[in-house]
């Protein structure tokens, strides 16, 4: 006879099982290229990531979109074979190519099944070291990306992202999206792409990360056979701007920006300001603060705007911690007739958490628990592990960092959270970007006390 569960109270979970980030082996290939390997037993999958600490912030001022265009063009073929043959080779081993260009880094990755590990990493080396950059391909892919820019002008989320970053980081290397603009893309040439590739993809500052159901030895051998003979030049200081050299950005003079979307049933919102870099000593306190404020479903802002008011499908906040100070932002869309009230709620909660309504003991416990007890979930797949290692490398963190993360979060107390909020969350400097029906909104928005909205084009 099975005993029935006791429904008079919820079961209390026992001690959390110990969990460790897998061991990251660090070495150099014979040509000096930095290699990180992680053994990840499980499904027969392997992933190779080449991470270069050069991203869209390295776009020349007249050439926004160049870093991303260059990365996008890699799979159009190599010196050895054209794009079609290259993709046939990829498809033939069931490999997936990934390209990510962020503000601070570019990552090119190939994932495949373990029996094709060597061919997979070989294709990665081929496209990174010897891209074809045929002018016909450059023109065609550039035009595709221009079409994308045009298309995104009718996507309210993409418009809000762009206007928000342009307002916060006006004139700064972080002040544009990686895609670039229609005008900047139009001016890009094959020469620009070839030069950017020469300066940014020289492997002197790159790291190859290999994670999969193979041994360190097997992963390293595959890397050596493919990347080990490539030339590795030292990093070019002209291209890679050290974080310390990125100019600091003051508060934006513009507080309220409105992009008209006539008749829209919702307003897309971005609210925030320039905050902190990844190396900020308050990093862990900020993670806890963010969970309480808007970083997960059970957070002050989502509970208020979704679960109490029903104004939105959901809102989230986050500190985007880059090599130089990045944005803190609230993301979300709310029904149009609740726009002003929702913005006011966000600004109020941003101000309150460092002042008259600091985190409660219960909130603190929940936030720390969510970050620490959920830790194991974040490193289940080879791709998740590779992403974690890439982040360590980019930010110069030690290979054991993830084992220090849990104790560091557990050490965050209420005083630290309040101090972090006071230091790094500034409701009175926040920029509010709204993509919504201007005619219906314009008059009531003045009630926010942020001045007349600056109206810009989508």
């Amino acid at each position, binding site marked *: 006879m099975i005993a029935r569960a006791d429904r008079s109270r919820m079961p209390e979970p026992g001690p959390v099982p110990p969990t460790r980030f897998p061991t990251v082996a660090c070495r150099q290939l014979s040509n000096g290229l930095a290699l990180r390997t992680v053994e990840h037993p499980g499904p027969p999958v392997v992933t190779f990531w080449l991470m270069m600490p050069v991203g869209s912030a390295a776009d020349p001022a007249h050439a926004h979109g160049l870093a991303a265009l260059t990365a996008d063009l890699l799979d159009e073929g190599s010196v050895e074979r054209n*794009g079609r043959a290259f993709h046939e080779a990829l498809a033939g081993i069931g490999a997936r190519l990934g390209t990510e260009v962020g503000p601070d880094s570019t990552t090119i990755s190939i994932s495949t099944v373990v029996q094709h590990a060597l061919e997979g990493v070989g294709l990665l080396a081929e496209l990174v070291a010897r891209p074809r950059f045929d002018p016909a391909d450059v023109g065609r892919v550039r035009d595709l990306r221009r079409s994308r820019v045009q298309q995104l002008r009718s996507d309210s989320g993409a418009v809000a992202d762009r206007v928000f970053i342009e307002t916060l980081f006006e004139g700064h290397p972080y002040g544009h999206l990686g895609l670039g603009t229609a005008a900047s893309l139009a001016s890009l040439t094959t020469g620009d792409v070839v030069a950017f590739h020469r300066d940014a993809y020289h492997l002197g500052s790159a790291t190859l990360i290999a994670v999969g159901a193979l041994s360190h030895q097997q992963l390293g051998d595959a890397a050596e056979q493919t990347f080990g003979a490539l030339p590795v030049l030292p990093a070019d200081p002209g291209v890679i701007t050290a974080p310390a050299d990125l100019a600091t950005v003051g508060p934006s003079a513009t507080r309220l920006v409105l992009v008209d979307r006539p008749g829209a049933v919702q307003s897309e919102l971005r609210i925030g300001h320039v905050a902190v870099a990844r190396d900020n000593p308050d990093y862990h306190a900020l993670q806890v603060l963010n969970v309480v404020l808007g970083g997960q479903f059970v957070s002050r802002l989502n509970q208020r705007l979704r679960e109490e008011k029903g104004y939105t499908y959901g809102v989230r906040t986050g500190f985007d911690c880059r090599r130089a100070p990045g944005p803190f932002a609230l993301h979300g869309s709310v029904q149009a007739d609740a726009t002003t009230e929702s913005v006011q709620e966000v600004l109020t909660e941003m101000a309150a958490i460092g002042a008259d309504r600091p985190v409660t003991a219960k909130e603190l416990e929940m936030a720390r628990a969510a970050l620490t007890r959920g830790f194991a979930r974040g490193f289940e797949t080879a791709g998740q592990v590779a992403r974690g290692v890439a982040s360590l490398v980019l930010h110069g963190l030690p290979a054991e960092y993830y084992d220090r993360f849990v104790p560091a979060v557990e050490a965050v107390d209420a005083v630290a959270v309040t101090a972090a909020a006071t230091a790094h969350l500034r409701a009175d400097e926040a920029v509010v970007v709204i993509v919504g029906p201007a005619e219906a909104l314009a008059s009531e928005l003045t009630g926010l006390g942020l001045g007349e909205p600056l109206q810009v084009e989508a």
Partner: protein
Amino acid sequence: MLDFSKFTLENGLDVIVHEDHRCPIASVNLWYHVGSKNERAGRTGLAHLFEHLMFEGSAHHDSGYFAPLQQAGGSLNGSTNCDRTNYWEVVPTNALELALWLESDRLGYLLPALTSEKFENQREVVLNERRQTYENRPYGLALMALTASLFATDHPYHWTTIGHADDIRAATLDDAHAFFQTYYHPGNASLTVAGDVDTAAVLELVRQHFEEIPAGPPIPPVRIGENSGPGAAPRSEDTRLRLEDRVALPRLYLAWRSPRLFAEGDAGMDLVAEVLAGGKTSRLYRRLVHERQIATEISASQGSRELDGWFSIMATAAPGQELVELEQAIDDELHALAESGPDEAELSRCFTQVDVQFIYRLQTVGGFNGRSDQLNAYNVYTGDPGFMNQDRARYREITAGQVAGLAHRLREPGRVALSVVPAGSADRALPGSRPAVVS
């Protein structure tokens, strides 16, 4: 490919356990065999609205379900489609009992806690989900227009899962109570627990929490009307629709009725989709995007569902290009594939691409499309959680001639062509298109 044990409790609940000890997490995944296909006209969207209510508390924990699970380091979510509703938690193994306690409490004891206040709040949230995901998103209403045309009003796939806004507004708390009483029974559910767990211990925990819940009445059958059932005459004419939307570039959707999930021809249609639009080696990408540069993007998919399927091709026009050109170019490729079939190397690449998906899909134990979700899917749709092996094998038997034959069917009359064009540019739709009715 996956080891599992399956048990069925006396109340009809299927219990599947899959052990994987690599990561100290446990996945709880619960499928209810109810979706928007079980709704009635005038109350579309109810299955999905109901899913939201399942997170708002039950008799013995009358507040949100996110708080205790996030506190335990878990993640959780749910989703609804036309055929089923699923709920899942991924937790550190120490919180497995908590997740089972909560899942069983909302199956056994939801209604005492389901108040009109919660109902009204989640109705507003769902209306905002609809605005965000469909109404205010470029091309967001296209799927609604397509399924409404492909499936007659007496077919349960006529409406999309999000439902009509007016129906969502018209739904009542009584509707929600009745829906729960009709469909949320152990016998209409499949529970998978996977991860760093012990099968015998899991079974004991599951019995402690779920055995007390009564079996409930039989589930009412889903009815397909006579205009849509197997005996209905196939469409003899193409349908052309247009939708004006807040978009920069016109887009063409072509859609056909196609085999249902696991039926004859279903796997073959996946290969047709792969040959036509799977990546940069595919025929339509090469021709329309790369060579002729008349389209900026292309995709094709076989959307196979439990009762029926639909195959669709989507192509977005490059600036200055017109949809008639795109349609002609697609028809040329369909014709070529129907005439000659894929060549050997092409078919071999498609096999590989489809086959490795089965391996990539093994990487996560929980969440949407993780192993526990797949075990439940196979169990609900075939009765065999281990059907993955047959699922994978059915692709290997497909010949080039069969792919050609399936492509040939796409040449027969009866398809729906939907032009989504910038507002004010109705003339850029395919000639003869009539306005689609969407809300």
